[in-house]
């Protein structure tokens, strides 16, 4: 019996202790007419060898392409230490640290992670993760509405230059609570979200303004001006940031005169493999004054009976298992193991290492954009300063180009047209520190050949 340790003799002894004659009898409170006779529809068991061969065959079918897509999920080098440590059984197979004394490992990791996110964002407090960057933003929006005591508005200004999937998730998760999302257009020349566009809404006050730095196009926003506009309009500022970029960029806590109020984003770039989209981890930080509105678990430092320092989950009165329907969120299971990986990743890299990775990504993407822009008909869409992604326009329709590139083993970029038809034929490209000059050259040559054959 796979994974079931009982021997025939033991089963007999156990049934005798219970005082029943069969396991079947233990289900006698289930109405007989509901009892199932076998799980038709589930295949027969495989041995470990068989399932290994099956999965290896399936993995062979999915051999990776040379990846020039970012668009919310970034392929970085993950040091071998990260997952060799995170996969240790004591981390991997523990539950949420409900018994603090028996979970000091996990709890200290969470505290260290929170400290690192505080260091990166320049805010005061962090939670121990949410599902992913998009759902973290949705939670931030709900939090801002709760936390903003200066206005009773349910309106949120949200840039069109924010990841389309993030905007969709925010809609799914905030619409039932009557929150109104007002989309702020971006400047067609710079690719930036401009203060003028905020002002053009004519809104006097609102619950929050979402600022995405860098934005979905890889373009850097003028965060100071946007932040100050928001604060002048009683709005809280929700920063959506790539934590890797914070190795170089101004932390949200320092935006404008008063700093952003909440920062959230996707921690995937910090040691998490792409994995077709998950598991990743959302993070969220805030100013101390808002901490009781922060959703999700929070680890805190405390003392034990002997006065020694130790860690425990804290501020649980915010959470669903205490506050039930009035909790800050329904989240229970979060992305703990991913946080462990991120913590180890950041510990290995340090500020200097992280800055080097960020700089290498910037440099590679610049190289890529330059090289591709040398191809007739290809060129940058926007003039704003960029981090490690670029929007390029193509002279022909995107899908066939990307398909042909894929056939050559190249994942050539994200087609922006379905989400941003106003851009025409445009792709979002990214070259992280993994991409070599040879790969970039290979991409350029393939693209050139494809375009030549198209015209």
């Amino acid at each position, binding site marked *: 019996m796979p994974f079931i340790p009982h021997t025939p003799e033991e089963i007999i002894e156990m049934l005798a202790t219970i005082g029943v004659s069969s396991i079947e009898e233990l289900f006698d409170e289930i109405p007989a007419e509901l009892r199932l006779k076998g799980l038709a529809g589930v295949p027969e068991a495989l041995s470990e060898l068989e399932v290994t061969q099956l999965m290896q065959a399936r993995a062979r079918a999915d051999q990776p392409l040379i990846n020039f897509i970012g668009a919310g999920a970034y392929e970085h080098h993950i040091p071998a230490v990260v997952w060799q440590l995170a996969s240790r059984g004591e981390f991997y197979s523990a539950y949420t640290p409900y018994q603090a004394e028996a979970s000091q490992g996990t709890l200290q990791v969470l505290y260290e992670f929170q400290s690192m996110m505080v*260091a990166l964002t320049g805010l005061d407090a962090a939670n121990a993760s949410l599902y992913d960057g998009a759902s973290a933003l949705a939670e931030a929006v709900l939090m801002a509405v709760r936390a903003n005591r200066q206005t009773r508005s349910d309106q949120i200004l949200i840039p069109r230059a924010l990841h389309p999937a993030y905007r969709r998730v925010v809609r799914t998760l905030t619409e039932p609570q009557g929150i109104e999302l007002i989309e702020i257009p971006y400047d067609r020349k710079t690719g930036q979200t401009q203060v003028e566009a905020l002002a053009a809404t004519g809104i006097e006050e609102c619950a929050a303004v979402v600022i995405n730095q860098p934005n979905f196009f890889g373009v850097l926003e003028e965060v100071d001006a946007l932040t100050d506009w928001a604060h002048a309009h009683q709005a809280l500022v929700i920063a959506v940031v790539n934590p890797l970029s914070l190795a170089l960029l101004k932390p949200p806590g320092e935006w404008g005169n008063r700093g952003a109020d909440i920062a959230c984003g996707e921690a995937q770039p910090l040691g998490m493999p792409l994995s077709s989209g998950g598991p990743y981890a959302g993070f969220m930080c805030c100013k101390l004054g808002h901490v009781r509105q922060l959703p999700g678990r929070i680890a805190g430092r405390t003392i034990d009976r002997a006065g020694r320092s130790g860690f425990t989950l804290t501020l649980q009165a915010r959470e*669903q298992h205490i506050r*039930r329907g009035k909790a800050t969120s329904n989240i229970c299971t979060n992305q703990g193991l991913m946080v462990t990986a991120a913590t180890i990743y950041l510990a290995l890299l340090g500020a200097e290492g992280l800055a080097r990775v960020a700089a290498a990504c910037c440099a590679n993407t610049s190289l890529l954009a330059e090289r591709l822009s040398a191809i007739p008909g290809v060129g940058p869409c926007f003039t704003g300063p960029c981090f490690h992604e670029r929007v390029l326009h193509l002279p022909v329709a995107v899908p066939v180009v990307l398909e042909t590139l894929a056939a050559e083993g190249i994942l050539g970029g994200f087609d922006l047209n379905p989400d941003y038809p106003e851009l025409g034929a445009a792709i979002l490209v990214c070259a992280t520190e993994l991409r070599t000059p040879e790969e970039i050259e290979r991409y350029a040559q393939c693209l050139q050949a494809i375009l030549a054959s198209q015209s």
Partner: protein
Amino acid sequence: MLIQERSRPGRRAPTQAPLQTPKLPDLPSHLCRTQRPALPEVSELEVMRHYTGLSQKNFSIDTHCYPLGSCTMKYNPRVCHALAMLPAFLSRHPLAPAEQGQGLLACLYELQEILKAVTGMDAVSLAPAAGAQGELAGVLMIRAYHRGRGESQRTEILIPDAAHGTNPASAAMAGFQVREIPTGPDGDVDLAALRSALGPKTAGIMLTNPSTLGVFERNIRAIAEAVHGAGGLLYYDGANLNGILGQVRPADMGFDIVHVNLHKTFATPHGGGGPGAGPVGVRAQLAPYLPVPLVERTADDGYRWLTESDRPQSIGRLTAFGGNIGILLRAYVYARLLGRQGLSRVAEFATLNANYLLARLRSAGFTLAYPTRRASHEFILTLKPEARAFGVSTADVAKRLLDYGYHAPTTYFPLLVPECLLIEPTETESKQTLDGLAEALIAIRRECVENPELLHNAPHHLPVSRLDEVHAARQLDLAWRPTVGEGSHG
């Protein structure tokens, strides 16, 4: 010691980043930071020792019996991890074309089918990232369903008082009013109270069965009839599916929607807090509302993602990409390893283990919360008699159990049973381990009488003694901060 406290300015693990300092990008200086973030500066060996040491401070399935009720802490087979970590799966970008993901999509499609088979539902979406997100997706579908039929006045969700906190929290997030339904003395829902709560505002009910009281809700057919009769839908919280896997299906009980916690029933790891996965299954009439993405089999025996444009009635997207794919792969491998019979055996042996442990503890004098009932895969002790007689609390007993080398059961949940321990041994624990756990609890009960102080001050053999939670909440210390001068050499 924190990793931050091991830091020394100028120390690094330099092989981890590009070796050449690349030309700093040409970013506008007013958008750049002026001080380096205060991240640790440590060597790779220090990282290795620090986190290896931290890991050793944890209880976990791989080191301890972990009978945490409602959490189903069973063995997480290592081959599931190994196969989900195959490089081709790890390095696939979420926006890569489906053609370069047929292997993955085949696994996900088959997992959808397996979940349909075990729940009896007609359609499944794997999108929710955990149980609570599955719940939210479920109640959002209830909302969408009623709105679709022009019944937007259905604004109430009924939830028994025994329910997990995520149930009311999820209902509230979906904009519903929550109405709590009391439990009868034998652990079943108070049917009369339920009936009187039903009405034109009823959108549905959220139920766990077996309930979090460790018993099977015997009146489930009557409940289903009553709720359906009132125009409501039944939501099945699958946290306890481990207790009935292959024995009875939520759909057959009358449920319309179900979520499954793969990190419980399908043995994916809990990772010290997550990630999990909470797929939702529904009956046919709700299928259009399922969250995206879903996996569809194409005419040519391939697979593709269905997204917003394919599913206009969908409640939408819950995370940026497709949810916790790596966890779904682990669950798929687990299901294939166990197969049809193995999955049914899960509930049989989980139930055998719970009832055996119950029998041993009952005969040793412990008080059961529902003494007339069969245990499902878990059961509840109440320590009220011990608390009264000896002044010990459930927390004391739980902490003392850690000293004996067992993780504590769930304490103080469900809220309606005073001084309760919710014990779920799971099917992967051996009789020897259960005997050891029973003997530890019996010994602790003896200590209650002979030396209650021992319990008040427990644990004694762990890296720290009892931690002060009140201090933690009053003197908030949520992040380490550099003392002045640190973190600024950049």
